[in-house]
């Protein structure tokens, strides 16, 4: 799950960093990014994801640990020499330059002759649909346009890795969705290796080939989105990614099978190393809950709130023990508030942990 072989394009090994006031920003983080992959780092504010990105970029220096690009140790190499492309949250377009001057800046520094600069910048502007804005100033652009220019500027230098620091956070929802799709398209087309930082878990799950979940400076889980979703490593990951129902209970054996009694229900346990009498935490997603066919119910509950979400109906159910279960029902479901219904959970989808890990 962490560092793999030396064929990774970008690798962080046991990187730690502490701020001047003593707070730990990044705590012994290791990760690797494969060539052409988009790794999304996601976590709540203050979890260290931006600092990690900045360490990869060279704009911050880790206290301990090493950074490798294509197997080469670049830990002591400053940002200017790492050939990275950074897209900042605030875009950071140079106010004193036009759009095309902004985009060409990296090439200009690399002493690419003007004709070539123009051509490469032109290609990228075409790809990102901003060709008509070439001679405008950043202050004359909308948020979405500025974002594309920032992207073009970072891509045109053909960086070893593209680093995106919450690039879509400043935009409104609709624009965000549009741009995210375009971003994916462009990155895949160019085959660029990218590191994408965001606090929006839905965005991360959408865009990442792999997801890295961070919390309080530590890397909690790195895996493909399916596994992150279906097999979260800790309660934190489970709670942070999507919506989860978690329940804790005792194991009991019955008729040769193991069940876990969580108070309001007894669920058949998939597989576990634990034995009867021990405690187990199970989790299941709202879409795994449905109205029970007769005789198949796992528990009954009263619907307290109903939210119609178009493609589904999300209901908040109160069990007789007082716990809340969130269930996503098909959108045609006819259910009413303050009414009791029987519910069942898809036992095959239950996931459990032996230990309680944060």
């Amino acid at each position, binding site marked *: 799950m962490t560092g793999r072989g030396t064929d990774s394009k970008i690798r962080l090994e046991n990187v730690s960093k502490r701020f001047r006031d003593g707070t730990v920003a990044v705590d012994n983080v290791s990760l690797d990014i494969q060539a052409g992959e988009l790794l999304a780092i996601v976590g709540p504010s203050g979890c260290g994801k931006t600092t990690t990105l900045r360490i990869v*970029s*060279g*704009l911050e220096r880790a206290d301990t640990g090493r950074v490798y690009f294509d197997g080469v140790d670049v830990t002591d190499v*400053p*940002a*200017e*020499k790492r*050939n*990275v*492309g*950074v897209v*900042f949250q*605030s875009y*950071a377009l*140079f*106010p*004193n330059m036009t759009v095309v001057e902004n985009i060409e*800046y*990296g090439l200009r*520094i*690399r002493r690419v002759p003007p004709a070539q600069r123009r051509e490469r910048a032109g290609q990228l502007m075409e790809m990102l649909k901003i060709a008509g804005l070439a001679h405008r100033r950043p202050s004359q652009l909308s948020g979405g346009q500025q974002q594309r220019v920032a992207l073009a*500027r*970072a891509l045109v*230098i053909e960086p070893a890795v593209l*680093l995106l620091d919450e690039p879509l956070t400043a935009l409104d929802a609709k624009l965000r969705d549009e741009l995210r799709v375009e971003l994916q398209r462009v990155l895949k087309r160019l085959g660029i290796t990218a590191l994408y930082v965001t606090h929006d878990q839905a965005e991360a799950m959408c865009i990442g080939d792999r997801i890295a979940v961070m919390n309080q400076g530590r890397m909690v889980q790195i895996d493909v989105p399916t596994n992150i979703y279906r097999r979260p490593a800790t309660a934190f990951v489970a709670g942070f990614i999507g919506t989860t129902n978690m329940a804790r209970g005792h194991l009991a054996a019955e008729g040769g099978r193991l069940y876990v009694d969580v108070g309001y229900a007894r669920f058949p346990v998939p597989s576990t190393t634990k034995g009867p009498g021990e405690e187990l935490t199970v989790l299941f997603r709202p879409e795994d809950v449905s109205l029970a066919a007769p005789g198949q119910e796992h528990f009954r509950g009263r619907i307290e709130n109903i939210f119609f979400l178009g493609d589904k109906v999300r209901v908040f159910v109160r069990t007789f023990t007082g716990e809340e279960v969130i269930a996503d029902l098909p959108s045609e479901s006819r259910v009413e508030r303050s009414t009791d219904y029987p519910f069942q959970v898809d036992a095959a989808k239950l996931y459990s942990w032996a230990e309680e890990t944060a």
Partner: protein
Amino acid sequence: MRSRRGAPVLLYVVAVATVAFLIVPVIISVLGSFAGAWHRSLVGDFTLEWYKYVFDNYSRTIGISLLIGFLCMGIGILIGVPAAYAFAKYDFPGKTLFEQIVALPMAIPGIALAVAIIQTHSHIRGNWYFVLLGHLVVTLPYMVDTVTATLRGLNMQVYEESAASLGASWWQRFIHVVVPNIRQAIISGALMIFTISLGEFNMTLFLYTPMYMTLPIGLYESYASLRLEIGSAYTSIFLVLIIPVLLAIQYLGAADESELKNI
């Protein structure tokens, strides 16, 4: 600006009276500088003899003031801008204290500064650069303050990081990204320095020697011992030097708070 109704007449009167109070003497002074004999008549009897007198006797003085003004500007840019950049960019123990100490000369009366300087540096008194040094002390803070504020307001940090990530060295970042964005602040700081230096009197009174007299000292001389007409002519020359600079500062839009300075 919202206006509901017209203002009460009384306010107009007060406003006009105040402006008149401020501006009329300036106009009179300018007119009087061309008048043969003031107390007889202000207009008519046109003459340039007063200006001639001023140029004959005070060109050197005016020249010295201009020289000091320009030198202050130049030195102010060379010393103040890098320092402002460092203040905005770096953090180190004692930085706030350092910044505040640099700003102190703006808050201390010129005579207090003068009495201090003249006691500690009496050995270089009599040199032409003695006055220049005094002026530097009171003008540098303005440049540092203006440019630092602009840099902080711009959040230059991000732009520099952006340029760095694109491969720019420190020097390239400074030239391509930092300087172009503070150009206006530098210019208005420089113009302010010039204005302050040209008009500096309180401190200069202590520091100057007859060989290196400055314009305001000359103004005082003319007020105290010469005819009003000569004083007027001299003042007009001062205004001619100052007004374009003030207009330029206004144009650059930095005027608002930054002119509450030396008397």
